[in-house]
């Protein structure tokens, strides 16, 4: 056990190892967060469609369910064929993870929009909000708590999945796992696992903060209640 920590120290002691690690980490952050944002936007748009048109709703639910069922490696490998990207392009991972994120978030968006009390919607319309503005200013903000929960799950999922991309040649922390495996070397693998977990934790904390910032009325209600 002591050997293992000594070796870990030696691994981290090399400047080249550290700089490669930080490069991989940055790639990883980019590859997991961009799909999160893109997927959320797509899910919101799709959810609005499904909320508005009942026929779209059932189609959306079935399609998103199906997409979500596709195993990760399977989706990663067929995307270059579908979107015609170059074989080594990292865009393949981004597209795949966007698909997963959107598929995951469609249902929470629908549920959240359904949960907006009708009298609130009515009141907004009554004081003159056009549908688009009403959606952006009233329904969407009220959906934030439910959406945030979904986004948190999606973020953990994305951060974990980016590593699989190493099998199709994409960067990110997954490179540490393939390297460690090929050389029968524990240190990069352990560093990679720990870094992934920490990244997931930090992003989760940030998302919680974001959610709280976007829902100030919850805080006001609490303080008012406390009085």
């Amino acid at each position, binding site marked *: 056990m002591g050997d293992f920590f000594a*070796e870990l120290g*030696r*691994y981290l002691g*090399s400047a*080249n*190892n550290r700089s*490669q690690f930080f*490069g991989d980490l*940055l*790639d990883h952050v*980019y*590859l997991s*967060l*961009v799909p999160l*944002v893109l997927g959320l936007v797509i899910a919101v748009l799709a959810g609005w469609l499904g909320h508005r048109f009942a026929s779209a709703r059932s189609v959306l639910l079935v399609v998103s369910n199906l997409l979500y069922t596709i195993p990760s490696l399977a989706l990663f490998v067929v995307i270059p064929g579908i979107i015609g990207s*170059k*074989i*080594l*392009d*990292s865009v393949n991972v981004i597209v795949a993870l966007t698909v997963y994120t959107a598929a995951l978030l469609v249902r929470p968006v629908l549920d959240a929009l359904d949960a907006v009390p009708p009298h609130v919607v009515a009141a907004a319309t009554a004081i003159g909000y056009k549908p688009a503005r009403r959606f*952006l*200013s009233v329904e*969407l*903000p009220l959906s934030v708590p439910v959406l945030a929960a979904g986004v948190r799950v999606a973020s953990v999922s994305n951060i974990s999945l980016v590593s699989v991309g*190493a099998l*199709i*040649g*994409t*960067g990110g922390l997954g*490179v540490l796992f*393939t390297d460690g*495996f*090929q*050389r*029968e*070397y524990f*240190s990069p693998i352990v560093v990679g696992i720990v870094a992934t977990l920490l990244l997931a934790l930090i992003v989760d904390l940030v998302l919680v903060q*974001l959610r709280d*910032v*976007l829902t100030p009325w919850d805080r006001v209600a609490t303080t008012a209640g406390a009085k």
Partner: protein
Amino acid sequence: MRRTVAALFAGIALLTASCGNPLAGGAEGGATGDIIIGASDVGESLLLAQIYAGALRNAGAENVTVRPPVGSREVVVKALQDKSLSVVPDYSGNLLRYFDKDTQATTPQDVYAQLKQKLPQGFEVLEQAPAEDKDLLVVRKELADSEIRTFSDLGKRCKEFVFGGPGQWSSRWKDKIKALYGCEFAEIRTTDTGGPVTVAALKSGDVQVADLFSTSSSIAANGFVPLVDDKNMFPAQNIVPFVAKGTLSPKEVDALNRVSAALTTDQLTELNVQFSEEKRNPLDVAEEFLRRNNILAPS
């Protein structure tokens, strides 16, 4: 509220845009453009890629990146074709076989000469190194002790054994080994390309014969015995830079030729030991090699 959300989205968008895509390896390489060095899934390939990178940077190339290992030759050729890669360290024999499946060349000179002939438009190879990393069929010591020393010895008894090797081994060699040595294995199993799965399988006895590579450190480390290829089935495998035409300037070509001239089999084996057994960082190993051979100025 709207302003906050809008500001947030704008902020994220700005951040993402400014960071750019750190993995924008899709850039076209030109003679003075980005040089992207690839590596196949043999660990030593990554080492060689780093050595090339170091030499190229030293020759004044500015944007040199090494891509993470992506799989074997087929992927690499495609990437060179669409210029997502500029140069890849490759092995003369296998490269020739890729473009001419029926080649009979086996010596280093013959293989290299035919390779230069058979390369399609858009590709070229620079000078080859004396260093070779050939396929070896290895067995555990116990089997070698029971009088199997050469491929010919093995040939008669192949039926008793399970073989473990890379996924492409079957399509590349199954017929040839039968034709040349009368060898038909009881089972040909895919393990990996001379990596830990193959080593583990041979060690545990799941397979009795494995395909490993001659400069690999795992052969000596595990006490495996390589068999002698008495009829030269496996051709010469000299290390040679495989280049997408037009991506390297003459000065850069020269730098790589100097690397090749300095690379011997012994040195390559030693590099592998440093990388795989001593677990040193590939950049460190590459740098030391370049200094030792006066390609980089001594520090």
